[in-house]
């Protein structure tokens, strides 16, 4: 059953193309599928299971052997399998959407730059958003070609967010960086290994340019090991099923997912949907930056057009086109069919239009470190646009930020420099049948927090509190989720704080009459005074006597506050999550403040 020799017909859909005209291509693969020999749905399911298993195994291997806290505790990494033409075939279950965009981006450049020069044992490395398909520099991409019977059949890829990649500020994520050069070391698609041999010169060059190089070295090798593990497993799978059927199965997986995505799109009523929101600021003086979307749905075709969105900005909240694509596809998948497999077929079913040089399709030398904040806004506007068409699955605006906090300094105990990076979750929007989640990573990111005991063990820092922010969830029939607060102070030394925050001015909106959530903020708290910091502060000194308070935004509610049930209002009160004043203001029919004495 397994050994069927099927002749592979290369399909035209094999190219990685962000701007894919969904309707046009559907016919060709169907014809190909009909002619195919017996790669039946059962074999496809079993091999698909094997592919996901390989992606998951490498995901865990990378997590467990890495050194960056981001990777080992927060799981800010992804693994995936691409075919020889660079199409995404399978990914680890816990992979992050924006990472997947980077991997497909890498494949496009890798194949263009190295056609005919890809050898067994090569390992490619890259991170640059403008010439190597990346989405920001700290995400280090690696890919190993997989050969079976001397034929290039696939790539095993992984990507990990390193705690530092050099540049102006520790952590390489701070606001206030005005061009890509300031954000860290740019790596085009190059070979870290050639035919199994380490190109030591390259590694030396990279390590010289990043902070805490001995730890980073461990991260690079954890990625290399994950590549090789995946390569070994893929070869085993190709041995078992043979190249012909395997490649046919790759085609089938992509084709079926695309059909499935198109069927999901068909459930959206035909029409044009628009929405507009703004980013607060770029950290370098540009404020209220428009993000605009027009969505056209016609049958199984969808066109998501960002016309009217701002030009790219000086500050580092720009996104590359593939990051935008990741955010759009994430949103459509979540709204329409959360269980749809993540592969090229899903990406190809969506036509994306964004003019080069805009905020959502930025080009060299745009800085992009904090692109996740803009991706979150892209999710919000797509949800906002489709809310009227999909009222049961639409949600209020989430905290809309990838609230990033980086503490750096010299550990007085060891004399060594340290970098502690964290991204905080916040509120998730109110939903059609329940409140939004409090204090959680939303949408395109789902990274864990670092345990307080890990922070205090590894860094000379003390966490004074970690809590939900009172009154931060927008009121509504179903309220928005609450933001998070962390208060941190350096012990026995002065440290530097860098951060990035969004929705510090423009509150996360509610839908269908729901109220907005609270804004987020960074506060420097001294013994006698408090200072509100900029939303994208860089190089702030926190002295030994001071502490830094981070508050992430809440989220918008769903439906009119007047429709909220007495039971839920009582829960808001008795849990202490909302103050009497807030409740009286928002639910006056149910809660009155006691008269001032």
């Amino acid at each position, binding site marked *: 059953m397994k050994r069927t020799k099927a002749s592979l017909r290369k399909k035209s859909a094999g190219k990685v193309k962000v701007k894919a005209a969904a309707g046009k291509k559907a016919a060709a693969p169907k014809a190909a599928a009909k002619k195919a020999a017996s790669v039946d749905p059962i074999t496809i399911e*079993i091999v698909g*299971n094997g592919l996901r298993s390989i992606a*998951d195994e490498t995901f865990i291997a990378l997590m467990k*052997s890495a050194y960056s806290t981001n990777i080992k505790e927060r799981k800010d990494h992804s693994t995936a399998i691409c075919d020889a033409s660079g199409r995404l075939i399978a990914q680890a279950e816990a992979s992050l959407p924006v990472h997947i965009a980077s991997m497909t981006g890498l494949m496009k450049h890798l194949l263009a730059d190295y056609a005919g020069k890809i050898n067994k044992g090569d390992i490619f490395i890259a991170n640059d958003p403008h010439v190597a398909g990346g989405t920001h520099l700290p995400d280090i991409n690696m890919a190993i070609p997989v050969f079976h019977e001397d034929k290039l059949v696939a790539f095993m890829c992984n990507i990990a967010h390193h705690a530092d990649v050099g540049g102006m500020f520790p952590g390489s994520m701070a606001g206030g960086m005005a061009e890509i050069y300031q954000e860290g070391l740019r790596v085009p698609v190059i070979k870290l290994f050639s035919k199994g041999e380490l190109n030591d010169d390259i590694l030396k060059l990279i390590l010289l340019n990043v902070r805490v190089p001995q730890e980073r070295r*461990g991260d690079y090798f954890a990625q290399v090991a994950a590549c090789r593990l995946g390569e070994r497993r893929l070869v085993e799978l190709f041995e078992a099923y043979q190249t012909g059927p395997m490649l046919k199965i790759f085609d089938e997986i992509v084709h079926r997912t695309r059909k499935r995505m198109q069927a999901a799109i068909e459930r959206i009523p035909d029409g044009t949907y628009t929405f507009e929101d703004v980013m607060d600021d770029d950290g370098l003086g540009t404020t209220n930056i428009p993000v605009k979307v027009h969505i056209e749905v016609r049958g199984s075709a969808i066109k998501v057009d960002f016309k009217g969105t701002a030009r790219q900005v000086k500050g580092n909240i720009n996104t590359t086109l593939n990051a935008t694509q990741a955010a759009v596809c*994430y949103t459509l*998948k979540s709204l329409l069919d959360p269980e749809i497999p993540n592969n090229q077929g899903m990406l190809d079913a969506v036509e994306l239009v964004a003019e080069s040089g805009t905020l959502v399709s930025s080009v060299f030398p745009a800085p992009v470190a904090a692109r996740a904040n803009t991706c979150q806004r892209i999710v919000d506007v797509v949800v906002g646009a489709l809310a009227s068409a999909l009222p049961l699955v639409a949600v209020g605006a989430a905290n809309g930020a990838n609230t990033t906090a980086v503490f750096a300094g010299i550990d007085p105990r060891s004399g060594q420099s340290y970098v502690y990076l964290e991204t905080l979750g916040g509120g998730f929007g109110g939903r059609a049948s329940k409140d939004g989640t409090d204090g959680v990573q939303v949408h395109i990111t*789902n990274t864990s927090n670092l345990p307080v*005991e890990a922070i205090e063990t590894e860094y000379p820092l003390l966490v004074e509190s970690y809590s939900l922010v009172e009154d931060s969830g927008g009121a509504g029939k179903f309220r928005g989720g609450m933001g998070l607060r962390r208060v941190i102070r350096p012990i026995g030394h002065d440290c530097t704080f860098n951060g990035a925050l969004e929705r510090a001015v423009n509150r996360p909106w509610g839908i269908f009459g729901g109220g907005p959530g609270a804004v987020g903020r960074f506060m420097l708290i001294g013994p006698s005074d408090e200072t509100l910091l900029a939303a994208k502060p860089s190089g702030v000194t926190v002295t030994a006597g001071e502490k830094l308070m981070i508050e992430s935004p809440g989220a918008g509610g769903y439906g009119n506050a007047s429709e909220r049930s007495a039971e839920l209002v009582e829960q808001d009160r008795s849990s202490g999550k909302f103050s009497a004043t807030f409740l009286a203001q928002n639910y006056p029919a149910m809660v009155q403040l006691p008269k001032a004495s």
Partner: protein
Amino acid sequence: MTWLVGVDVGGTFTDFFAYETGSRQVRLFKTPSTPKNPASAIADGLLALCKEFDISPSDIERVSHGTTVATNALIQRRGGTVAVITTKGFRDLLEIGRQTRPHLYSFQQDQPAPLAPRNRRFEIAERITAGPAIIEPIDQASLEKAIEDVKQSGVEACAVCLLFSFLDGSHERAVGEALSKVDGLSVSLSSEVQPEFREYERFSTAVLNAYLQPVMHRYLTFLEDRLRADAPGAKVGIYQSSGGLMSIDTARKFPVRTALSGPAAGAVGAVYMSRLSSEPDVITVDVGGTSADVALIRNYEAGISFNRDVAGFPVRLPMVDIHTVGAGGGSIAWFDRDGLLKVGPTSAGADPGPACYRRGGTNATVTDANLATGRLSAKGLIGGRMPLDIEASRNVLAPIAEKLNFSIERAALGILDIVSANMVRAIRTISVERGHDPRNYCLLPFGGAGPLHATEIARSLGISKILVPAAPGILCAQGLIASDMKDDFVRSARMRLDDAGMATIGDLAADVMIDAAKWFDSESIEPHQRRISLSLDVRYVGQNFELPVHAVSGPGGKLPVIPKAKEIRRRFLDIHTQFYGFCSETDPIELVNLRLTASAKITDLTGTSKAKTSTQKPKPIARRPVWFSADGPVDTPIYDRATFLAGQKIVGPAIIDQFDSTTVLHPRDVLTVDSALNLSIRLSK
């Protein structure tokens, strides 16, 4: 006469395995479970067992019990009311957890709501940080206020969850002391339940423990009272998730340790069987109606994991490393939106069950596929009271076959292939993902449906040998008899593993040995039964995940000499290479936890009486066509396993029916009945 009794409480039946130590007689007994109070089926069943086999209850020396009370209380959220006392500034920590969503792409799925709601989580001013260093002593006023709040809230249990208590438990103990004055309140200190690094997981474990305390207390008290009256000589051992028995008192204090008691007992039963058949390295797959549990046994020891979710909450405790997947006899076959056939995790369960049960099931299940391919007998299991309706199976399989453009049998084979692939994926998680090559293992299937699927699973993993235990359906109860008494102790301490560090480890080990000695004494364990095993959780400095490195073990309850730093390092490098495929010769390594396991062999089951042997071919009881591949049916002999004698051999195809299970022997595979009456199957190349 001295009888040992193992009792395993399942969803439908409570199984008894009784063993007489002098004559080595075995008695098996089943009685319907009593889910409302599982202890009554145990107590009543025990009396019925005695009556049936003429055993004097006073001759029962030990009752070993695997319990699902804790598991069910968690799944059904029927635990006690819980309050929490925590460090000031961290009241929300238990609710925030790791700030993640359970499903990246779902706007609707949430983590489960905390078992202690926010208005029952109280803060006290105190603080310990890394070092450990007390930077703020307990503020007595805030403590008194918190105790008063706990009292006012009227809860049954309280968890004490303070930061860095894994390094210094003095603050938690002080709070515990103050709480002990509250009448009728159960108290769980995170530093006692499991004193380990990472606050959320530690707190969560403590809260689960507190949540289970009231339920478990009532259950164990009832059981203890009944057994004291009915079988006054019997000592009771409660099976814990890490393998091994604990006393009723320990179970009362730490009920969370029983959260995976049932499946863990199966793994120990498998260890027992693998010993009898001299198969040290075994992968087990326990297939029931809704799910399959898989575990890996290496050198007769079940793998242990320290971090897993139970009912949606993280539990940080040593537990037999069991991976569960929603693949069982009742798993339903369905088409996904991309036209691919899937099987499970939704299950038809026992009611309505598969279509062939004729209880109104309308979905095609794995059992229907087994019936339609001739692998299961339409007469049902031997001794079973329920015939199976093959036409009903064919009727529900027909639409699937039509959609695939397959024959019904080929569609059924596809369903079996997919459900096997799901189990294979689970096995990969506990084998290849932990650095073990399954090809070096023997597959041990059990549970009613395990031996039906073993061959497909083994072939996909490159396994060449299968061992089907004598009674696959009661392996858990049998495992309970074979279990040791056991307790696990841990000390979290971060230090470099060099010669200086090893000196400190000696001190730590000596310290933890004091606890172990206390435990041996409290359980009245004789010196010759005592056994100590010491292992170290080690990692490279800068990594966050540790690997367990076995340090030393030995008998007699005394700590043997701990190897030198160089030797520990060598072992760590080997394990790191095994798990991750690489290691650094030069990077420094450090200790994170020191774990000591104290155990006591209480039953010697070696040298079980020799079974009758024969070299004659067994005689089939029937023949029928069976589908092993899509090529077509094969005329296949059917055997009754009860007639098998040690030494007998058959070459497949064959179907072997028995009281509680069916074994499928594929064409050309060779089956031998071994001296323990286990079926040893060699797969053809």
